[in-house]
């Protein structure tokens, strides 16, 4: 049967902001779905609150709503758009849960909207653990022993039967939020309480522990004719007990015989049929006892998942695209496999390489949180590597993580690590366990002992052992011969050793190894990802590197050249690698746009990236895709084959930017802003000189080698100061310092990270308004596309701060001045492409905090808010277009009458014990956008989308530092006017009472421990609707930490700055009903915004 004709308009739900457990893989799946359904002629209505997504680009859907993903807002959209169907299986758990609510609220029934992909009963059967277990037992499959509990008594009863260790998982959550592992009663109680709290239906399942078993996943697709295929099998290197999102995983499964694999496949088919997923992709997890092969079904996701994105990239089989087509009535055999162009999608991909996915963690951002892994996901990103062997893929994955490792290497000398520590790090799953496997192997512990400690399958350990053995052999050879023979060098490359690893053994530099390698005729070659292990001719332009005979990239490039008869110019775009805090989907968005823009101009585009979650690594985005780590070596190898006419480094975030210098020196043609300009902006001294030369202002600053020097500088500048080591990874370890004592202790702490590099000290401009500017520049002229005002005070990382566009409290003269200054800087730095500047404004003085001559995190937000395709335009400028060709004008920007607010989304609920104070270090994982004709409503929408909807009644806990006391009076008055009652700590209460406000006083937590009026208790009892708590200077107090921790746990909105509080109150005052409007209408009514060219 071809497509369904009974539906015309389809509502597609996105997944909202990037959070741990739900990253840009759903932009990938949603974008594929939009494309696939539009291709079929359906009208697409899309809802997603995340502005940094490709899918919310106005051309991907017919009606694009950047609105909160809540039942209320989506109902309003349904009422307005009257879609025939809703597709909830491509927007992660968020979309699925939302669709469930819309069904339960009878909204779907009311507006006669059908659910595509999976219906309510199916989702319930798959997601509700009790129903699922019943279904599994019914078809004769095995599950762990388990029981449900809705309260502590039930839980305690259950654990008596099951016994420790046990796993506790809440029903209906995403990314395993609130789950945990308990070895004893104490841990048990804590995890159960948290689990019940975070479950949408206050339910947890307590389960027999199968920790240490082998873990597998199968990606399954089914069509309405009941045809089922397995797209990919995945085996986890980290055994059961670690969330699969936090595990190193390998595709295909390695240690199952065909018989066992077929048993698992049969089970998966039986499960998808029994659960009844009508069409689309599902993911099923299994555990296998390594001792006897007992196979247990763990869980199923009746939707496209992170693993589906991985499976799609690992095999070349586009799960989300096909899922969308199946949802509208096609069957698998009616869909063509794009890769072979001749065969249908009703087949099972077979691969002739090995894929390793490694998670990227960000524990360094949360020093209080332990890097211990469990059933709750903690990683913020991932990288995938493809190699012909596991050893090669593993080493590529580890260097692709960009965590300072250049393969399966040593950061530390194993001799210096006590055995007890290695034992512990092997036993307790953690972010760096894989490297402890190496230390253990180096200590000569042997596979058996390491297996006993870690339960990592011996098969994986054996391959790691082989890598180490080769390393030792190479080192020995070098000791004897001072060099490496061709054979050894080739073997090392086949084992995935990077040139940098080899340079360490050879005691030389990376370039020398590269030269040596080339002299010996050893070069990387590229193989095709083709779904069929070369059994059929394939047309995918999707490659990975290895060291073998035949280079298929060369074959394909030559073939294309012969066919077209001409040489198209080539632009290569370097992506951002694994997501991390500070570098995520925004940069992928820019890279994808760069590719589109270059194709529009007739270039052939080449994408290089290693992040399987992204749109950029979809093989039909660019003319050719290289799935490779973003290191100098890997990029240069591709340059050797492709010989691009230009390389774009300014869109992928810090990752490609860090390569710019070495690529430039190697003669790679980098387009856009020059490497020198980038360096001028990044080098403190050069930058200061430039600012001085231009007659602009910068916060006073200095750098110090010694503590005494630092104190002297700080005293000269005047406290507070912003202190940071000059040499750290990713803007880490910054601190606002208010006094000498703290400065000294900071310097002491910073010693470890700065390793002899100076400490930088900047004047900290307190209570300044911070402004972020995104601009385009062609070297002569600049155009300021967006001036965003931060809602938090300066000093909070711009990535964590809410901001509003256009700026609300900046006078027009200052706005003009900001534009002038931006143009001056752009011209002085000869910026060609994008430019982002951060300003602090105090007393009408404009201080320049930072200049980034590259795509910024806010570029997609500005594009969505203004309709100006910033990244595309910048890319075109980079290859020679001039600004005037685009017809951009400020008059026209002023015609836009709407206000856009960006709010960040923080991951604190995943890191128990971490204080949620915001500071100069970025901590957020994602962002949302609220858009309205009114600032208050836009802010309110942004808050709702970020998960903390502002209350309209109840008690507000207001406790502020001394500097904010005066400002708090006005805030309290407005709250009182809206009918809120106010609760304050002594100091704040005193000030408020003085101003005639009715305030209830609450003691400090210590004092009030046993009294009923205790803030913590009130938060726990849900008696507080809103917390406004500004940190008092530097000293972080016990009270604040526990209050904020409790607010996160109990989901009470918590505001930490006075500016934030003002915005919130403005939003609350203006909350009046639900208004929704698609981006297309915002742009339409306010003048056409699409750029010329």
């Amino acid at each position, binding site marked *: 049967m071809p497509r369904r004709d009974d539906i015309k308009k389809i509502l597609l739900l996105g997944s909202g902001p990037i959070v741990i457990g739900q990253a840009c893989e759903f932009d990938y799946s949603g974008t594929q779905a939009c494309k696939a359904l539009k291709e079929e002629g359906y009208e697409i209505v899309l809802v997603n609150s995340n502005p940094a997504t490709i899918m919310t680009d106005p051309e991907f859907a017919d009606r694009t709503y950047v609105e909160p993903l809540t039942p209320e807002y989506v109902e309003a959209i349904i009422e307005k758009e009257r879609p025939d169907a809703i597709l909830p299986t491509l927007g992660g758990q968020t979309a699925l849960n939302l669709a469930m609510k819309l069904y339960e609220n009878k909204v779907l029934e009311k507006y006669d909207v059908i659910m595509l992909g999976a219906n309510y009963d199916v989702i319930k059967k798959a997601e509700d653990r009790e129903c699922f277990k019943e279904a599994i037992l019914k078809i004769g499959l095995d599950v762990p022993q388990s029981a449900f509990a809705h309260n502590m008594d039930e839980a305690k009863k259950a654990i008596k039967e099951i016994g420790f260790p046990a796993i506790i998982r809440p029903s209906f959550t995403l990314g395993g939020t609130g789950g945990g592992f308990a070895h004893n009663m104490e841990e048990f109680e804590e995890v159960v309480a948290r689990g019940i709290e975070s479950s949408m239906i206050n339910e947890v399942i307590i389960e027999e522990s199968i920790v240490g078993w082998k873990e597998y996943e199968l990606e399954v697709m089914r069509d309405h004719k009941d045809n089922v295929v397995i797209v990919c099998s995945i085996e986890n290197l980290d055994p059961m007990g670690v969330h699969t999102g936090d595990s190193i995983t390998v595709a295909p499964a390695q240690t*199952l015989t*065909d018989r066992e694999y*077929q048993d698992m496949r049969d089970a998966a088919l039986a499960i998808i049929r029994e659960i009844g997923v009508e069409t689309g992709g599902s993911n099923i997890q299994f555990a296998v006892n390594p001792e006897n092969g007992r196979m247990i079904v763990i869980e199923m996701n009746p939707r496209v998942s992170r693993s589906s994105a991985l499976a799609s990239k690992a095999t070349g089989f586009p799960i989300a695209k096909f899922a969308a087509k199946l949802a509208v009535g096609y069957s698998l055999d009616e869909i063509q496999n794009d890769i072979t162009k001749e065969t249908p999608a009703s087949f*099972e991909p*077979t691969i002739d*390489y090995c894929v390793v996915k490694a998670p990227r963690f960000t524990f360094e951002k949360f020093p209080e949180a332990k890097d211990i892994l469990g059933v709750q996901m903690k990683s913020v990103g991932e990288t995938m590597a493809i190699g012909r062997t596991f050893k090669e893929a593993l080493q590529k994955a580890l260097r692709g993580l960009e965590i300072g490792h250049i393969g399966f290497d040593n950061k530390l000398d194993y001799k210096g690590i006590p055995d007890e520590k290695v034992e512990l790090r092997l036993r307790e799953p953690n972010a760096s366990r894989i490297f402890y496997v190496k230390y253990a192997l180096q200590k000569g512990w042997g596979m058996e002992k390491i297996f006993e400690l870690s339960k990592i399958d011996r098969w994986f350990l*054996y391959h790691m052992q082989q890598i180490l053995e080769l390393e030792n052999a190479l080192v020995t050879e070098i000791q004897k011969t001072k060099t490496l023979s061709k054979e050894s060098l080739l073997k090392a490359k086949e084992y995935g050793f990077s040139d940098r690893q080899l340079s360490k053994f050879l005691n030389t530099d990376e370039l020398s190894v590269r030269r040596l390698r080339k002299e010996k005729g050893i070069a990387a070659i590229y193989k095709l990802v083709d779904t069929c292990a*070369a*059994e059929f*001719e394939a047309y995918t332009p999707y490659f990975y590197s290895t060291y073998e005979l035949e280079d298929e990239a060369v074959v394909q490039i030559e073939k294309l050249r012969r066919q077209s008869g001409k040489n198209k110019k080539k632009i290569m775009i370097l992506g951002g690698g694994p997501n991390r805090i500070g570098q995520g989907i925004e940069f992928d968005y820019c890279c994808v746009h760069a590719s589109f823009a270059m194709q529009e101009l007739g270039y052939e585009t080449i994408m290089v990236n290693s992040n399987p979650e992204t749109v950029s690594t979809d093989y039909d985005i660019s003319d050719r895709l290289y799935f490779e780590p973003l290191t100098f070596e890997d990029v240069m190898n591709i340059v050797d084959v492709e010989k691009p006419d230009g390389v774009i480094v300014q869109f992928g975030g810090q990752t490609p930017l860090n390569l710019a210098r070495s690529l430039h020196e190697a003669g790679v043609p980098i387009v856009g802003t020059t490497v020198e300009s980038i360096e001028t902006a990044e080098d403190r001294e050069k930058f200061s000189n430039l600012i001085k030369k231009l007659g602009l202002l910068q916060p006073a600053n200095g750098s110090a080698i010694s503590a005494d020097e630092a104190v002297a500088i700080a005293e000269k500048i005047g406290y507070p100061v912003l202190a940071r080591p000059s040499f750290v990874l990713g803007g880490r370890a910054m601190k606002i310092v208010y006094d000498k004592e703290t400065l000294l202790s900071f310097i002491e702490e910073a010693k470890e990270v700065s390793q002899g590099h100076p400490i930088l000290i900047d004047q900290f401009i307190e209570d300044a308004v911070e402004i972020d500017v995104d601009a385009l520049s062609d070297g002569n002229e600049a155009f300021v596309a967006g001036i965003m005002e931060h809602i938090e005070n300066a000093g909070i990382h711009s990535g964590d701060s809410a901001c509003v566009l256009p700026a609300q409290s900046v006078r027009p003269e200052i706005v003009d001045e900001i534009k002038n200054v931006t143009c001056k800087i752009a011209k002085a730095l000869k910026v060609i492409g994008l430019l982002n500047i951060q300003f602090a404004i105090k007393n009408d003085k404009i201080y320049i905090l930072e200049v980034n001559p590259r795509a910024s995190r806010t570029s997609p937000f500005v594009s969505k808010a203004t309709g100006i395709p910033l990244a595309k335009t910048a890319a075109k400028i980079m290859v020679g277009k001039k600004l005037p060709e685009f017809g951009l004008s400020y008059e026209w920007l002023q015609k836009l009458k709407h206000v856009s607010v960006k709010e960040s989304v923080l991951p604190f609920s995943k890191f128990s014990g971490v204080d949620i104070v915001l500071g100069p270090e970025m901590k957020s994982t994602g962002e949302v956008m609220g858009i309205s004709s009114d600032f208050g409503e836009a802010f309110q929408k942004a808050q709702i989308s970020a998960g903390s909807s502002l209350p309209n009644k109840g008690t507000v806990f207001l406790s502020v530092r001394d500097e904010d006391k005066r400002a708090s009076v006005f805030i309290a008055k407005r709250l009182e006017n809206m009918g809120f009652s106010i609760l304050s700590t002594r100091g704040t209460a005193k000030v408020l009472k003085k101003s005639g406000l009715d305030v209830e006083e609450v003691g400090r937590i210590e004092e009030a421990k046993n009294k009923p009026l205790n803030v913590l208790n009130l938060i726990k009892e849900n008696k507080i609707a809103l917390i406004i708590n500004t940190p008092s200077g530097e000293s972080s107090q016990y009270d604040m930490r526990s209050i904020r921790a409790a607010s996160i746990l109990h989901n009470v909105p918590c505001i930490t700055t006075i500016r934030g509080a003002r915005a919130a109150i403005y939003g609350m005052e203006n909350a009046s009903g639900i208004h929704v409007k698609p981006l297309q209408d915002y742009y339409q009514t306010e003048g056409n915004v699409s750029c010329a060219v």
Partner: protein
Amino acid sequence: MAKAILFLEDGTSFFGESLSTVGESAGEAVFNTAMTGYQEVLTDPSYAGQIVCMTYPLIGNYGVNDEDVESDKVHVKGFVVKEFCRFHSNYRATKSLIEYLDENNIMAIEGIDTRALTRHLRVKGAMKAIISTEDFDPASLKKKLEKVPSMEGADWVKNVTTKEKYVWKAEKGSPLYKVAAVDCGIKLNILRILARLGCEVHVFPASATAEDIEAIKPDGIFISNGPGDPAAAKYIPETVKKLVGKYPIFGICLGHQILGLALGGSTYKLKFGHHGANHPVKDLLDNRIGITSQNHGFCVDMKSLGEDEVEMIDINLNDQTLEGLRHKKYPILSFQHHPEAAPGPRDAQYLFDHFINLMQEHKKT
């Protein structure tokens, strides 16, 4: 470990390293794209006379065991892989793959760009090849290959068929059906499945006459899979011809081709053979799609059979070739793919039930 060459008859060479077995071994080079199931492949008699290249690069991961065999010996002439895994991890494993290959004196070569080799074979077609650890001279190797008989026109069945007739008992209880199996290189999993379905299988040498077979008064006849060119073992279709119409007949792979010939049809060589465990086949009777295991280079020409007598009931969705046929008058069914899987998906195992049904109906009459 010794340096080894894989030399193809078109003059292409690949270099790698051998396992313990040294010397020379020639055969037809083919590839298999299944990611699991190397032990089944090695012991599948259909691979007799062939040098098999596994496209999945890591081979040996789960070792070998006593159960996952498809016959009592290794049949391949040579085994070509990217990397042998010398360490295996699986609770059922009894030894490593390389020990197994060495014990069976199989010429095996690793370190080969198996993807390049596969692409080469895909474009140029299956061809003769030789693995050698002794002779690296192309001219001399070429000469040696010239003496190796071609797969086309070669009767390989006689090398793999059972010497003596034997009986494979029904799994439990008294047998429901008596099946006469013509062993052209039968895979054990076919016997296991038939036994599970209540069949007592009398396995005959391929040279058995129609009279030999009829003597046991079978309820049904099975023509097995096997190696080589179906047109080369003419005596088998001759035998089958005499049985057509008298008994339910079920054929798999070579058995299907033999039936095609026995029914008066012809076979042709496919441009690209089917060699994997991921081929979609549509059952035209109920429109169900199954993922099937396949291993064949020849195909029955549907046109040669005539639609009056025979109908196509299974079709390969990749290249629209014939995958299964049914006789319109007689209880005859046969399939080009492998419903018995091993290795591969078991989606088509239900086809054995059709054979059982045919026998059941036949018994009634």
